[in-house]
């Protein structure tokens, strides 16, 4: 088989394998050759990005199902297969993952100086795992990639992180692992029950999962190295919400519908709680971490509106959050590298000293708030529209979250960038260098592009999300017709079994 044909038929598998192959090759480079290791990794991630472009090109916006599917039996006696595919739901999240990688790698140029080789190996393994999560269409495969993400992330936080990195790394691992092994039992139960997956199940296990996501990752965020934070914000959090959309809600529609009031309340609480806690943070990174909680609250609210607008808004907002919050963490990283502090009180009046940095920071801040013309606005607006249709009051309360976001972001921006320069050290700050501008620019471009003309992105989601919503409704109706609603499904299923 020629290379082109291989690429043609196994495009998605190549996307999964490429970073892993890169990581394996990296092992052969000498430890001291930091420069070569960095360049090689950057090259791999850029190659991965270029290879991912044909996915968008070949993606048929009119088709609602999985595309570019590859299917190989893996453990056939158990019906486990290697199946990968992409649809309108996963397309942009996948692209975001691949797009953010070279940017992240570039941002580590001066931030990561010890054990560069291992760092880059873990980054590439992480990329394989994350791409795998978004492409896997087999629950078993999905779980494998899901868990595979934990190991490199654990090392990235634990070795290259900040002060309390070990505590954060272990906490991150234990919380996530505990959540995911319970998910595994659910997967197994589902596996034996798959023939009547008409939604006879409960969100019970997932509920725990949802509850822990926003709060548990605070320490991981703050203690993670900048690159770790960017990945954590840009992709890992999306894995949770993506899991909801792709598996939890799709597989258990009745249960999802039953639990909607609770989840919507939690989402709104997340929005307000994240915003309020962000407001009082002294540390910029913590502030950004808490703003993530608020953003993910929006995503959840959108998902659980179960309509086209809400879900498309949520998917777009996942991508937006990846771009904006990723960019914010990079901004924090840039400033931290120069001053080795992230306390808001240490800064002030920076706009005069570092004008380019100031401009970038401004755009990213506005995008995070969701000002019209930036990507954040489109996502939040769609979500609020979708939510308003089904649960009006949640939308109304959630909308106040936007105001809070403006308050804490702008207040922080003002304290850092404007006013008098109170600290001598800030006078000597260097502005962004070419490398930093190079990785920031693509992010700014997408912030404005999605903000002004989101159509190309939304168009490719339409068919899939439409199909999703239709299927969801149909399944829900069928299940409701067959069984009384609201009965605890888990109990019933296992009573029958025994």
């Amino acid at each position: 088989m020629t290379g082109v044909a291989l690429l043609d038929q196994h495009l998605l598998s190549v996307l999964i394998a490429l970073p892993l192959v890169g990581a394996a090759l990296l092992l052969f480079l000498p430890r001291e050759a930091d420069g070569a290791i960095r360049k090689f990794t950057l090259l791999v991630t850029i190659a991965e990005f270029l290879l991912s472009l044909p996915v968008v090109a070949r993606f048929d916006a009119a088709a609602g199902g999985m595309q570019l599917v590859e299917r190989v039996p893996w453990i056939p006696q158990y019906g486990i297969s290697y199946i990968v595919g992409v649809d309108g739901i996963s397309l942009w999240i996948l692209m975001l993952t691949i797009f953010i990688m070279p940017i992240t790698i570039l941002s580590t140029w001066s931030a990561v100086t010890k054990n560069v080789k291992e760092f880059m190996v873990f980054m590439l393994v992480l990329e394989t795992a994350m791409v795998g999560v978004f492409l896997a269409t087999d629950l078993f495969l999905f779980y494998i990639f899901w868990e595979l993400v934990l190991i490199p992330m654990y090392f990235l936080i634990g070795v290259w992180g900040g002060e309390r990195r070990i505590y954060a790394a272990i906490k991150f691992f234990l919380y996530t692992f505990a959540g995911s092994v319970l998910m595994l039992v659910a997967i197994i139960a589902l596996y034996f029950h798959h023939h009547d997956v008409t939604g006879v199940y409960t969100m019970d296990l997932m509920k725990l999962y949802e509850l822990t996501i926003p709060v548990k990752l605070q320490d991981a965020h703050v203690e993670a190295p900048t690159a770790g934070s960017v990945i954590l914000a840009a992709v890992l959090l999306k894995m949770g919400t993506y899991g909801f959309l792709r598996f939890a809600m799709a597989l258990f529609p009745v249960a999802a519908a039953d639990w909607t009031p609770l989840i919507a309340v939690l989402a709104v609480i997340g929005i307000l709680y994240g915003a309020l806690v962000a407001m009082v943070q002294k540390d910029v990174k913590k502030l950004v971490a808490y703003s993530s909680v608020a953003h993910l609250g929006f995503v959840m609210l959108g998902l659980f509106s179960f309509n086209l607008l809400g879900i498309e808004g949520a998917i777009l907002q996942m991508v937006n959050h990846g771009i904006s919050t990723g960019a914010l963490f990079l901004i924090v990283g840039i400033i931290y590298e120069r001053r080795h502090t992230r306390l808001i009180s240490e800064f002030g009046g920076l706009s005069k000293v570092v004008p380019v940095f100031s401009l970038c920071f401004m755009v990213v801040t506005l995008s995070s708030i969701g000002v019209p013309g930036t990507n954040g606005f489109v996502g939040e607006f769609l979500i609020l529209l979708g939510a308003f249709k089904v649960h009006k009051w949640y939308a109304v309360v959630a909308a106040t979250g936007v105001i809070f976001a403006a308050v804490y972001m702008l207040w922080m921006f003002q304290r850092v960038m404007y006013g008098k320069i109170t600290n001598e050290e800030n006078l000597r700050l260097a502005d962004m260098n070419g490398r930093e501008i190079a990785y920031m620019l693509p992010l700014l471009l997408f912030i404005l592009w999605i903000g002004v003309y989101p159509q190309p992105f939304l168009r490719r989601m339409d068919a899939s999300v439409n199909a999703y919503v239709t299927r969801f409704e149909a399944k829900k109706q069928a299940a409701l017709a067959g069984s009384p609603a609201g009965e605890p499904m888990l109990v019933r299923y296992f009573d029958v079994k025994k």
Partner: protein
Amino acid sequence: MTPIPFDKAALVQGLYCILPELVVIATAIAVLLADLLLPERGKKTLCHLGIAGTAIAILAALSLGPGRIDGFSGMIVHDGMGLFITLTILVVALLTLLMATGYSEWEGTQKGEFYSLLLFSTAGMLFMAKGTDLMTVFLGLETMSIPIYCLVGFHRDRMTSLEGALKYFLLGAFASGFLLYGIALIYSVTGTTKIPAIAGMIGDLRLFGNPVFMMGVGLLLVGFAFKVSLVPFHMWTPDAYQGAPTVVTAFMAAGVKAAAFAALLRVTLLTFPALGPVMTNILWVLAFLTMTVGNLSALLQDNMKRMLAYSSIAHAGYILVGLVTVDVAGGQAALFYVLVYAFMNLGAFGVIMLLAHREDEGYDIGNFTGVGFRYPVLGGLLTLFLVSLAGIPPTAGFIGKFYLFSAAVKNGYVGLAVLGVLNSAVSVYYYLRPVVYMYMLPAQGEIPVPRPTRTAFSIALCVSAAAVLVLGIAPRSVLAFAERSILSLLM
């Protein structure tokens, strides 16, 4: 009494059936004889002799094939199950001997009796795994255990070694007593010690509910529980594992477990379905207690050997989950896990053996500080084995646990599966602790220099690592082999 006629064909078939055992015993004797003849400098050859003998035994086992061969009028049988466990045990012995090449050199166990005891014990394990008669099982168990008591106390000048050996011996002797008493009670009711015959009688004679019979089965279970260290019969394990020469610890943890679980599987799969829920409920409780106590105790350990000892208890609990279900799915998952455990356990012990400078204090977790980046291969290998022990994909440990808990869920034991996965979550903490020390904590003072690696030792580690990865990514054919093995047992 009429004399039993001499049947030459039956004898030949019987000997053929135990061909691998014969090879192992012959090797053990050859090692003893060679020890007399070899000069002090040439003692290394003893180990090589053992390795060669074990390799031939593996070939012998393979040449027998998966078909059923009865030996000695149903006392012992070679079937699919026998083949699977025979291969597992022989691989354990082979890897142990490969590691012993290096270990004996550092720790002064370069002696004929060390290797021949290892080999005799291996032969005992093989008999135990293939015994279809409770007497064969008992004889195998004793042949396995007595050399191990000696091996645990092989470092005669170290108190921990002697303490471990004495504890193991005393409690093990009691366990043998329980087992034998159980067999006697069962015999008193059924008039036979053949497992299939007993299984056939349970329904006919309404043995279920017969207090003498039930007590016999219970005592039998206690005997096995001692050997695989199920809670509350695990008290000897940490001391014996910590005191024993590390290479013996690795051998015990993997080999004894494989043999004892094989025998237990034969008994449970054939007799427990007819005995109703009482027995499976007992197994359920034992599995839960063993997992939980093992994992919680392991959390507190600072000595790597002791930590792996408690982890070994926890793993016995996981394997027992596969026995609770008394069906093909559970049995096959248990068999598969026994094999997987052998590789990851031997691998982990192998790496810490290289990194520790001396027995006892050398295994303190603090000694591993900073090792990861200084010795990337060893650090990476230990991480791999620990990750597999914790049951994280894409390693064999994950696939093993996946099938154990799937079998539980399939048979409606969702509660046990949930307890099992929560236990895995707890175990992650102590499995990752050495990783924290190796990679994340700043090194205080000198980073210990690992022992110089020998080719044989490296081969053992590479084989274990490759097996952990291959069984984690492409477990298909081995799983199918395990399934056929269990089916052959039920035929």
